């Protein structure tokens, strides 16, 4: 176990470092100095130079990289040029929207995807199965931002049940805040749930063909009991991978869905920061997302070992 853990952790760290260098270098060639953007097109070169110096933009690149990474490690995310506040404040404010949004979306995804997948597998080759599979193909093909627009059209414009966009914040009424997140969460979750349903179905079907399921049936278990007691736990192994990766994906896809609903989350933040050449914030947010992807991958690998007793033995 420990050798596996050590190996896995060192690849994780190496990829993380490589990713941070890539992010830094890519944004290094970003044209347009932040100082120019802040001061506007009429600014004088002296003013720009002065502000650049104040922001530390004239320091050599390696030095800035080290201070950026060092800052991240000590919890200092740097200063946002555009908002003139610590970047961590801006990021945390955005996370207050994006984290609940993603969590709601993950819950919808798991409930919808798992139940549809298990149902389809249980009704293999029957009408219910074919129906779920056809719907899942539609779910995969619908662009999430268009689904968002359709949801607004139906539930906000026609029915008037839910707000069309915006976010009232958590300070006033939690109910209002949650209401504002429902449609975006559905728009985010449908695509993922469609994929999860397909993965779940094929995982369950694959395990159902294993000999031990026949053994279980020969013991006198009903089809349903064999599914719950013997198939699902084995099928969970591929399902957990997908759910884990989907959590990271959902976070990233907020970039496309948040603008549809004008939600001031991480997605909107990165779009605004790119427009404002707010390089520090862009760096931080991209690093955060990439870090999340890597952490999730790591977590998925570790969870495997817990679920599948065979892996513990193999790695011991």
């Amino acid at each position, binding site marked *: 176990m420990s050798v596996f853990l050590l190996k896995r952790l060192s690849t994780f760290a190496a990829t993380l470092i490589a990713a941070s260098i890539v992010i830094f270098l890519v944004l290094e060639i970003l044209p347009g100095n932040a100082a120019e953007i802040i001061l506007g097109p009429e600014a004088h070169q002296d003013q720009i130079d002065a502000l650049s110096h104040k922001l530390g933009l004239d320091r050599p690149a390696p030095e800035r990289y080290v201070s950026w990474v060092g800052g991240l490690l000590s919890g200092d995310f740097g200063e946002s040029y555009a908002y003139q506040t610590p970047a961590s404040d801006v990021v945390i404010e955005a996370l207050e929207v994006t984290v609940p949004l993603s969590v709601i979306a993950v819950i919808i995804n798991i409930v919808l995807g798992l139940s549809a997948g298990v149902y389809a597998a249980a009704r293999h080759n029957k009408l219910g199965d074919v129906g779920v599979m056809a719907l899942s193909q539609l779910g995969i093909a619908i662009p999430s931002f268009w689904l968002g627009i359709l949801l607004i059209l139906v539930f906000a414009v026609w029915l008037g049940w839910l707000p069309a966009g915006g976010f009232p914040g958590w300070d006033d009424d939690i109910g209002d805040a949650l209401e504002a997140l429902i449609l975006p969460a559905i728009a985010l979750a449908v695509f993922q749930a469609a994929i999860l349903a397909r993965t779940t179905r094929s995982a369950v079907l694959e395990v159902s063909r294993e*000999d*031990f399921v026949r*053994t279980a049936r*020969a*013991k*006198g278990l*009903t089809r349903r009991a064999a599914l719950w007691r013997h198939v699902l*736990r084995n099928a969970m192994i591929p399902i957990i991978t997908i759910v884990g990766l989907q959590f990271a994906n959902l976070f990233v896809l907020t970039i496309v869905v948040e603008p549809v609903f004008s939600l001031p989350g991480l997605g909107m933040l990165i779009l605004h920061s790119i427009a404002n050449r707010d390089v520090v914030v862009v760096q931080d947010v991209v690093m955060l997302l990439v870090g999340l992807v890597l952490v999730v991958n790591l977590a998925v690998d570790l969870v495997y070992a817990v679920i599948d007793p*065979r892996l513990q033995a193999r790695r011991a």
Partner: protein
Amino acid sequence: MALLDVEDLKVSLRTSRGMAQAVRGVSFQLERGDTMGLIGESGSGKSITALSLLGLLPEGAKVEGHIRLDGRELVGRPEAELCKIRGNRIAFVFQEPMTALNPVHTIGRQVAEPMTIHRCITHGAARAEVIRLLDRVGLPDASKRVDAYPHQLSGGQRQRVTIAMALACGPDILIADEPTTALDVTIQNQILDLIGELVAESGMALILISHDLGVIAENAARMMVMYGGSVVESGPTAEVFRHMGHPYSQGLFAARPKLGAPRGEQLKTIPGTVPELADLPTGCPFSDRCGLVIDACRTTPPPAMPVGPDHVARCIRLDVALANMAVAR
């Protein structure tokens, strides 16, 4: 009234080429304490016959005829009632011990499972009985091994576990489908001896399926030879071995490796291959591969011809076949 009475059992399976008859009119009776061997090549219908006794056929299969357990018909019984029989009155030991156990549950849990289903007791309460069973089937250190996972056991040990699982509810009939084929040669006899002991001890009936004549000869009092979904020869094992009547049985006998055979002597083989179910000839299923075939063989399925006491073979060329066999000996 027989414990198990199978009468004119026919099973059709759905294949990519349409429905195919995998079992074509099999009949036999089994009493408590009987041991019956079922022999044939893969595709002969022996496993399908066994699975149909439990109602565990692949989806889309069609069953005709009668399977009566204590006089009660099993064919067409609702699934829920069949579940009460499986693992309880009729238990199964499968061929592949490596894959027949669920990798994510402990073996104790899996052995206890039939009891929790049929005896309404909890896993905890079943524990002592599980340990006793594991001990009985010869799993060393049973009280510790009860919490082991399947991957921590060897193939032979796993097969002992599946046997314990089959015994959990004290079934009346044990069906062992090639229980030793996947095991090392040295382990095979131990497992067969164990099954034999357990059958003698509990008085249950045994259906032992194998493709190995030697296994059947040593472990079953009666035997049936299956080919192409039909029983081509059946009778008391000793009787069948004394006067092997059907050309197919004779072929199987000639094809077995013999100890002490002169070096360089070639193993006899049966010419041709087992036909696909959908391609079976209309008359005798073996007619396309049989050396004694005459035109009449190909037109109608042969009737059961008596060979000896309680011993029949489905072959119209039986006299010639028996004469050949006598010469060969």
